[in-house]
C-alpha cells in the first residue's frame, strides 16, 4: 500500500486545501455529464431533487478524488503535474484526506438513496469504489490498460444521472457511458505521449512506457476509429437530433484527422517533449497536444449539444426507426 510521505507542515492546512482534495476541475466535468444524463432521461424530476442528484454525484466524485490523493501521495510527489497537491506538499495529512473521502462517500450515497432512488445510489457507490479501489489501488500501478478499464469510473456519471431521474438505465444511458469510455484512451494517451517522463519517474506503467510511443500512437488511432461511430450513434437511437448528428459527425472527422496526425508524428519518441505548462510542448509532440486539447472540446460539445436539444425540446432523430 502507498503511504503518505511524512508531513512536515510547512504551512497549516486551509479549508481551500480540502476543496482541492475534491479535484474541482474533474468535478465540473462530472457535473456536466451527469446533468446531461439526468436531462436526457426525459422524466419529470422535481428541480430540487434534480439538483440534489447532481450534488450527490459531484460530492461522490470529489470523495473519489480525495481517496485517490490519499493513496497516491507517494507517486503524486514525484510528478511535476501533481507534486503541489495538498497531501504530497505536506499541507494536509494523508489520514485527513482519507477521512474526508470516506465521509463524503457515505453522505453522498446515502443522500442519493433517500432523496432519489437506490439504483442511482448503488451506481454511485460502485463508481466511487471502482475509482478508488479498482483503478487507484490496483490498475494504475499494475497495468498499461489502467486508464482503459479505469475509464469506466469517469464514464458512469451520465448513467447515474439518468438512473436518478428515471429509476432505470436504458440502452441510451449506456450509450452516453460508452462515449466517455471510448473517448478516455485516446484522450489520456495523447497526454501521456508528452508527459511520459513524469509517469516514468513515478513508476506508473502508462502505455508509452510499456508498449512504446509508436504502439501508443497506433492504439490512439484504433480507439479513435472505434470512438467515431459510438459518438454518432445517439443520432440513430432516438437520443440526438439534427444538431447532434452534425456536431458529432464533424467533430469525429476532426478527431480522426488529429489522431491520424498523431499516428504519423514522432510524438513521444524523445523524452522531455513537454515544456512548463500542460499545453506547452515541443514541435514533435504538437500533434499529441492538439489531439488532447480537441478531445476535451469534442466531449464537451457532444454533451452540450444533447443537453441543449433536450432542454429546448428539439426533436430527436431515430434513423433506425
Amino acid at each position, binding site marked *: 500500500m502507498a503511504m503518505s510521505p511524512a508531513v512536515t507542515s510547512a*504551512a*497549516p*492546512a*486551509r*479549508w481551500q486545501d*480540502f476543496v482541492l482534495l475534491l479535484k474541482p476541475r474533474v468535478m465540473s466535468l462530472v457535473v456536466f455529464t451527469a446533468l446531461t444524463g439526468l436531462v436526457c432521461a426525459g422524466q419529470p424530476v*422535481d428541480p*430540487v*431533487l434534480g439538483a*440534489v442528484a447532481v*450534488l450527490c454525484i459531484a460530492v461522490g466524485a470529489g470523495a473519489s478524488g480525495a481517496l485517490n490523493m490519499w493513496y497516491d501521495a507517494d507517486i503524486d510527489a514525484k510528478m511535476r503535474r501533481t507534486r503541489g497537491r495538498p497531501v504530497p506538499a505536506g499541507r494536509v495529512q494523508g489520514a485527513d484526506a482519507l477521512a474526508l473521502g470516506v465521509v463524503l462517500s457515505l*453522505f453522498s450515497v446515502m*443522500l442519493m438513496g*433517500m*432523496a432519489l432512488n437506490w439504483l442511482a445510489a448503488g451506481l454511485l457507490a460502485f463508481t466511487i469504489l471502482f475509482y478508488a479501489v479498482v483503478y487507484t489501488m490496483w490498475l494504475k500501478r499494475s497495468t498499461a490498460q489502467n486508464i482503459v478499464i479505469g475509464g469506466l469510473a469517469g464514464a458512469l456519471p451520465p448513467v447515474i444521472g439518468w438512473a436518478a431521474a428515471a429509476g432505470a438505465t436504458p440502452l441510451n444511458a449506456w450509450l452516453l457511458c460508452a462515449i466517455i469510455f471510448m473517448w478516455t484512451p485516446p484522450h489520456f494517451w495523447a497526454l501521456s505521449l508528452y508527459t511520459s517522463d513524469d509517469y516514468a519517474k513515478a513508476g506508473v506503467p502508462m502505455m508509452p512506457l510499456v508498449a512504446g510511443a509508436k504502439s501508443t500512437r497506433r492504439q490512439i488511432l484504433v480507439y479513435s476509429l472505434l470512438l467515431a461511430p459510438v459518438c454518432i450513434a445517439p443520432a440513430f437511437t432516438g437520443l440526438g437530433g439534427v444538431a447532434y448528428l452534425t456536431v458529432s459527425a464533424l467533430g469525429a472527422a476532426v478527431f480522426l484527422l488529429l489522431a491520424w496526425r498523431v499516428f504519423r508524428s514522432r510524438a513521444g519518441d524523445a523524452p522531455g517533449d513537454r515544456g512548463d505548462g500542460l499545453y506547452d510542448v515541443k514541435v514533435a509532440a504538437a500533434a499529441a497536444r492538439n489531439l488532447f486539447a480537441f478531445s476535451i472540446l469534442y466531449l464537451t460539445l457532444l454533451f452540450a449539444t444533447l443537453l441543449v436539444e433536450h432542454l429546448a425540446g428539439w426533436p430527436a432523430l431515430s434513423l433506425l426507426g
Partner: protein
Amino acid sequence: MSDPAGESDAAARARRGRNIAIALGLVAFVILIFIVTIVRLGGHVVERPF
C-alpha cells in the same frame, strides 16, 4: 499572538477557517435534508398517525 500551546498565528487562523467551513457545511447539510424531506413528503409532512 501565539497561544500557550505554541500554535502560531497562521496555524490558528487556518484552524479557525477550517472550523467555520465545517460548521457551514453541516448547516448546509441540515438545511438540505430539511428541504429534501419537504419536497419528498409534500403536504403529507404534517400528517400524523395519531
